[in-house]
């Protein structure tokens, strides 16, 4: 079974600074997807970024980028120029695709200090 581990229950960063959230996973598959979801206090699960395992190039979405290390099974999220609106729980998730469900980590609570 796949597992996803987020080792940082909480992180704090100053506004405008850069922060990196860690995620490791375990799988025997070679093809899969990895995601970071953001959950603000509204509770909505918002997709931040998506990575396909067969792509070596790291995904980027504006201020958000990932460092995907397939051999190390590591998938960290970097947030540049942190903004107050980035404050939320961040979940790392693994997916084989199709009918399979997502496997989530337990989340990292990101605090933005003004």
């Amino acid at each position, binding site marked *: 079974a796949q597992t*996803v581990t987020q080792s940082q229950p909480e992180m704090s960063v100053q506004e405008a600074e850069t922060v990196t959230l860690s995620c490791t996973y375990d799988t025997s598959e070679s093809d899969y*997807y990895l*995601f970071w*979801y953001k959950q603000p206090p509204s*509770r*909505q*699960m918002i*997709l931040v970024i*998506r990575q396909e395992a067969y792509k070596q190039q790291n995904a980027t979405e504006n201020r958000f980028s990932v460092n995907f290390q397939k051999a190390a099974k590591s998938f960290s999220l970097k947030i540049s120029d942190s903004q107050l609106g980035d404050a939320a729980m961040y*979940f790392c998730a693994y*997916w084989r*695709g*199709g*009918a*399979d*469900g*997502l496997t*989530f*980590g*337990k*989340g990292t609570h990101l605090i933005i200090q003004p």
Partner: protein
Amino acid sequence: DAGITQSPRHKVTETGTPVTLRCHQTENHRYMYWYRQDPGHGLRLIHYSYGVKDTDKGEVSDGYSVSRSKTEDFLLTLESATSSQTSVYFCAISSGTNTDTQYFGPGTRLTVL
């Protein structure tokens, strides 16, 4: 935003009563999923559907049943609610294409007294 709605958004019920949560999508996506979110556990898969009348169990399916009679609707039923089923329930959908992603509904907060 993906067109996913969940109803009700909040519900309080008593132990032993039946409860049905509804997920409705307007995207015509093939796959639908039910998750529950509990403190310290992230989200965990309850059941999923890969087509009309095609469903299967997830990681935490005990005490839950599902039905999908139309592409757009996926129902989650607690036959006899227990306090351990107090949780936030999320529905998700995916298309099954090569640009696939799971998109989530707004969630339902269920409290079983």
